[in-house]
């Protein structure tokens, strides 16, 4: 009860669970064991990082956003322009892209501090649309609808060249995902993370216990933007091009759907959601190229009606 | 007297958890029952089950001879249940007047009479629920239960947060309407003496079961027994 009980209880949440290393080992094993799937592993890793960054803001801090693609896109274009005009070194490019996205995140955070959920949805959506239009307009820099193509990046860690099969790409993305995931994990289990959850659960009380709400939200929004920017940079660096598509609404929307599937507020929700969503999308579109979104939609409706926990236990579906 | 309210072998709880077990009690017309017990013993669960907000696992509830437990929650008001829940639950986006007229049913208690009982509410009749103070919300919750013209009033800590002068008014009113209009009432309160004084019967719960059932006077007359049952040093 007392003594070690309380401390153990608190630390339980931050302790690494037994299945976690297994999960990551399996993830890293896939491109070796199933080389033909390396490309999709890369895609999943990138979008999982993107989803985790949104979970920090949405799941842990309670800030709804339909425009997270703004940071993804800025990261993507920064990586492209950095490679084209400065240096093909992917690592520097990654850091610079994260920095650019962080700056945008910092600036944009002031727009989501106040207001209701509805205003936040509109404001975040608006920002992504603005960036999309700006990218479109300044087409001499961004390449407009054609985008920036044919980018060639230096080998990862100076040794591993990006291959056509995507093996190096998938490991690069997985490594970045894991590194940033570990950082995110520490953040959410820290006192800072607890203050975010407090702000999400009851902003009034959070203020009443001395939490500087605005400062904390600005901080997490900036961090999340940096991570989303990293995902965008990975996208450019592993595909060799960047186009207006990176700012598209469907990216922000799909991200929300992934968190619906995987669950918010537990970080792995973004990863699991990304895996399920991408695999489902891949599978369905290969089965029914025309109607795959119908089946995806049906899956989501059933998921929401039945509830994530019960979905895996079909015998509970009709019990009241 | 007759059994106006009759509860037999009631078991209820939340989800799989069983909070109440085998609870039986009866109440005659025009009688008030003081429902007492330490915290967490199931008093609110019992009120909520009678109101239909909590699922019943087993047992029966009959009001004026009619089975009540088969009715869904939203039909119990029509059946004669007036419920003042512990958390008040007034309609926050409606005004005081709207809160009352939304649920009013024909009978001796109309909106006008309720305003006479709570002049403060009359002063605030155009205010939204959110613009009321805590105590005013409490008053509104009680008023709203009255305006339903119930046969059975279920009051879960109705005196909480009310100014002393309102408390004595309210107690007098409850006593009067149960006597004059044959209303039955079950009251859960933290301070047993105030309620026992206006009650006819008393039931004490412990860990979801009835451990004492007698006339209210009997408990009032034996403070030793009362403190033993409630664990209250008074």
């Amino acid at each position, binding site marked *: 009860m*007392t*003594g070690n009980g*309380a*401390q153990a*209880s*608190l*630390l339980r*949440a*931050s302790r690494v669970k037994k299945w976690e290393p297994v999960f990551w080992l399996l993830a890293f094993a896939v491109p070796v064991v199933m080389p033909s799937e390396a490309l999709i592993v890369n895609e999943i890793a990138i979008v999982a990082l993107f989803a985790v960054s949104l979970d920090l803001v949405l799941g842990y801090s309670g800030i709804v956003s339909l425009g997270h693609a703004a940071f993804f896109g800025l990261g993507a274009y920064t990586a492209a322009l950095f490679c084209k005009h400065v240096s093909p070194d992917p690592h520097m490019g990654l850091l610079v892209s994260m920095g650019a996205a962080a700056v945008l995140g910092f600036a944009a955070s002031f727009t989501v501090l106040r207001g209701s959920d509805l205003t936040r949805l509109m404001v975040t959506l608006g920002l992504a649309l603005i960036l999309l239009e700006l990218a479109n307009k300044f087409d001499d820099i961004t390449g407009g609808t054609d985008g920036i193509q044919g980018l060639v990046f230096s080998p990862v860690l100076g040794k591993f060249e990006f291959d056509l099969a995507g093996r190096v790409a998938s490991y690069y993305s997985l490594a970045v995902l894991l590194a940033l995931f570990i950082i995110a994990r*520490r*953040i959410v*289990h*820290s*006192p*800072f*993370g*607890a*203050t975010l*959850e*407090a702000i999400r*659960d*009851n902003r009034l*009380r959070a*203020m*009443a*216990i*001395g*939490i*500087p*709400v605005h400062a*904390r939200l600005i*901080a997490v929004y900036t961090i999340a933007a940096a991570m989303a920017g990293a995902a965008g940079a990975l996208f450019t660096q592993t595909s060799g091009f960047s186009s207006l598509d990176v700012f598209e609404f469907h990216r922000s929307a799909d991200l929300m759907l992934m968190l619906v599937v995987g669950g918010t*507020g537990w970080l792995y929700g973004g990863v699991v959601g990304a895996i399920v969503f991408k695999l489902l999308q891949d599978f369905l579109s290969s089965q029914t190229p025309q109607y795959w979104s119908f089946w995806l939609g049906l899956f989501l409706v059933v998921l929401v009606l039945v509830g994530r926990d019960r979905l895996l236990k079909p015998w509970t579906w009709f019990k009241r | 007297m007759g059994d106006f309210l009759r509860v037999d072998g009631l078991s209820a709880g939340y989800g799989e958890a069983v909070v109440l077990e085998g609870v039986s009690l009866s109440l005659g017309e025009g009688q008030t029952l003081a429902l007492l017990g*330490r*915290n*967490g013993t199931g008093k*609110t669960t019992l009120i909520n089950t009678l109101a239909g907000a909590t699922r019943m696992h087993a047992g029966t509830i009959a009001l004026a001879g009619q089975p009540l437990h088969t009715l869904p929650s939203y039909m119990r008001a029509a059946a004669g249940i007036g419920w003042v829940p*512990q958390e008040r639950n007034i309609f926050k986006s409606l005004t005081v007047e709207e809160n009352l007229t939304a649920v009013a049913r024909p009978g001796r208690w109309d909106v006008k009479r309720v305003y006479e009982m709570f002049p*403060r509410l009359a002063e*605030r009749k155009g205010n939204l629920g959110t613009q*009321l*103070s*805590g*105590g*005013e919300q409490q008053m509104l919750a009680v008023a709203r239960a009255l305006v339903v013209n119930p046969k059975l009033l279920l009051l879960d*800590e109705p*005196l*909480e*947060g*009310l*100014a*002393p*002068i*309102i*408390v*004595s*008014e309210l107690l007098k009113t409850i006593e009067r309407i149960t006597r004059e209009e044959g209303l039955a009432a079950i009251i859960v309160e*933290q*301070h047993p003496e105030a309620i026992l004084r206006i009650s006819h019967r008393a039931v004490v719960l412990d860990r979801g079961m009835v451990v004492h059932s007698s006339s209210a006077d009997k408990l009032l007359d034996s403070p030793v027994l009362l403190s033993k049952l409630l*664990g209250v040093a008074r």
Partner: protein
Amino acid sequence: MSGITKDIVLSAQGLVKRFGGIVATNNVTLDLRRGARHALIGPNGAGKTTLVNLLTGVLAPTSGRIVLEGEDITRLAPHKRVQRGMVRTFQISQLFASMTPLETLALVVSQHRGLGANLWQPLGARADVVQRCEELLRQFHLVEAMDVRTEHLAYGKRRLLEIAIALACEPRVLLLDEPVAGVPAGEREELLQTVAALPADVSVLLIEHDMDLVFSFADRMTVLVNGGVLVEGTPDEIARNDEVKAVYLGHDAGNEVAHG
């Protein structure tokens, strides 16, 4: 207004709050002495909670000043007032639904001790923080419920957690808004004793309707009616005041004050 200079730790001076045409707070002046056990009573809707909202900065006054330990805090942000030692509780429990009492207290204690911006260490890493949490859990009978999500806690336990949170902030000025509402009879006395037993330099302003408790707790009382101060004085003076009886206490008891 006393002519004797006492050590005034919190002072509300001519506070006015208007909402459109309604005057919720009408020129209220209230001085809280250091170590005070000061009760604020009045009819429902008199503006007691509004006054606390003004003092804590949740609401901005239409006019008037608030001075805390000699510093004018009228324009100071709410969280900064808490950092300067002014802590309040809420009439309707304001808790963190998804967190357990243990997590909640760990959060509050960490924040109070300046660890709130720590991004790296796990929440339960500091032994001194955990120890303080255990103390509070014991003090407020929350040990058994320490791992239960707040949204699943029984009502009475929620009220206790509500107060525990405030004490975890190590307040110098404590504003309690109907703290015992919903707390079982056996624990009310104990709860207020815990508050009364706070160090002598902690100043407490208490809003309550339970007159037995108020009269045993307070050494000074202010009566608020329709947003303005009706009278201020010692509990004896207030209990005998005819106006107060007429609008608030009722005439039931006579010598003994009617219980709330």
